[in-house]
């Protein structure tokens, strides 16, 4: 049974990792972190940020809306305290970075390029909670291309572009990221969403809109993975709505090489290791030797 997958030059022992913003070393008492394919801490920004107004989350049927807005103590503190905290864990660490300008992304990459504890960079070009009204770099093919090209110049570490699902043609953005030098693509960040409490007539998120995650988005993410897989040769990390091993397998079949788990960890802190176990059971039951044999291998109904 071979669970290993390659994300650019990086080999992961299995295809399951946390989604940025939903994971921290605080999980250690509740989850065997060493079993993960990779570690992905919360997105980091150049300087400290306070995050958005509260309430920052609300529950909706089949998922949640968040508008955390990247609360961060800045890159210096990240290098000084966050990276060392993960040093004694086995899985490689993928650092998610988030800038307000292309230059900030490049600066962040420059600083992290020197860090041995960073195996790859995930570029969060898709956060719906940072700029005005849910705008993101990942909504423009040219901005995406420029951003990737700039970051590519300052580091040789594998670059993973985290795409936004809030676009007309994700294929164009995927293509722009590939041309810009991305080694892999995360598909995708959260869907811009909104909820209003009808009794109080107030928005349920302080920032009005936020990002929808959780089971409700799975059929949309499966479609986006399929579209991106058709458009590029890059490995895809599927993210959005995976609650169990079957959901992960569905994403492999659609074209994903690995998966990220977010909301499911809030439901059950050890969701990721359960999902790894369920993937193994699936492969055994179907007598499939390697998880990579699943990638893109669906048939027509």
């Amino acid at each position, binding site marked *: 049974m071979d669970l290993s997958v390659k994300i650019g030059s990086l080999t992961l022992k299995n295809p399951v990792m946390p989604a940025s*913003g*939903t*994971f*921290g070393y*605080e*999980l250690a*008492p*509740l989850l065997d972190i060493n079993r993960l394919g990779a570690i992905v801490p*919360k997105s980091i920004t150049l300087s400290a940020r*306070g*995050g958005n107004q*509260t*309430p*920052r*989350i*609300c*529950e909706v*049927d*089949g*998922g*949640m809306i*968040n508008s*955390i807005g990247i*609360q961060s103590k800045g890159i210096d503190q990240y290098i000084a305290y966050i990276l060392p905290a993960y040093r004694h864990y086995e899985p490689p660490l993928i650092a998610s970075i988030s800038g307000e300008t292309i230059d900030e992304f490049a600066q962040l990459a420059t600083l992290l390029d020197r860090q041995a504890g960073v195996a790859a960079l995930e570029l969060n070009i898709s956060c719906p909670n940072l700029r005005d009204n849910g705008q993101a770099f990942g909504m423009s093919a040219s901005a995406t291309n420029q951003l990737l090209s700039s970051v590519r110049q300052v580091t040789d570490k594998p670059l993973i572009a985290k795409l936004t699902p809030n676009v007309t043609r994700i294929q164009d953005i995927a293509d722009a990221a590939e041309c810009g030098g991305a080694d892999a693509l995360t598909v995708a960040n959260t869907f811009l969403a909104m909820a209003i409490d009808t009794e109080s007539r107030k928005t349920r998120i302080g920032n009005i809109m936020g990002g929808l995650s*959780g*089971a409700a988005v799975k059929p949309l993410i499966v479609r986006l993975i399929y579209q991106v897989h058709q458009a590029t040769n890059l490995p895809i990390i599927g993210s959005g709505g995976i*609650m169990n091993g079957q959901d992960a397998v569905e994403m492999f079949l659609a074209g994903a090489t690995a998966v990220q788990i977010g*909301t499911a*960890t*809030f*439901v*059950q*802190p*050890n969701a990721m290791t359960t999902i790894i176990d369920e993937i193994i059971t699936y492969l055994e039951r179907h007598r499939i030797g390697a998880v990579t044999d699943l990638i893109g291998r669906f048939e027509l109904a």
Partner: protein
Amino acid sequence: MKTFDARLIANYPVNERYWQMTLDVSARDTPARPGQFFHIRCGDAWKNPLRRPLSVYNYDDELRQLEFLYLIKGSGTEQMTRMKKGDSLNLIGPLGHGFTLPDQGPLLLAARGVGVATLHALARQARAEKRGVHVIISARTPGDLLTVEALNQIGAVVHTVTDQEGTSSTASVRILSEQLIRKEKMAAIYTCGSRRLSKLVQELAVIYHLKGELATEAHMACGIGDCYACACTVCNDNQLKTVRVCTDGPVFPIRQVVLS
């Protein structure tokens, strides 16, 4: 802190809007302290993907039973009322920082609404240590007053004030509190459940140089410090700082709390 299943021993309404639940937590090893909370899976993962935070209402170390007192607020707590003896409930906890007691002296507790659930545990602990405990319970109507008997039984002195009787205004509660602080020589003051009460308690703590603590609430996702959903602002050494209610709180020194 761990994730575990607990078997339900009892679950019944204490009045129209509040329920009480008792769980067998003999599988768990760390005792829960007053002010700490558990993060509870209270429905199916579809309709209620997020857990709900509930304070320890009572933790019985000998029987190894954990009690919650909860308000039916929305769909999650509504789901909780459907659970029956023998069902099992998945919890993470105990979580967060609980209350701290002063070295000696009696305590004044001021609670409104579901805040009594949280302060009840504190009253129990203080009474177990033979401290003097006075509890001001504020509610809309006399029928809404909660846990008065239970508190009396453990030897806490209960003072009830209600909107209906016109005794719950900030001015009235201030007079009552100041009398108690002076007469009983209170060493500390605690509050939970109302912004108005919190402001008053903050003032009183400053004026009378009392140790003061507040148990806060925030919408939570992870409950363990990872997601920053539960952020709130505190003021420490004149510096505003964003902290996490779930891990840096939920109990904060009342002087640090920023009340708008």
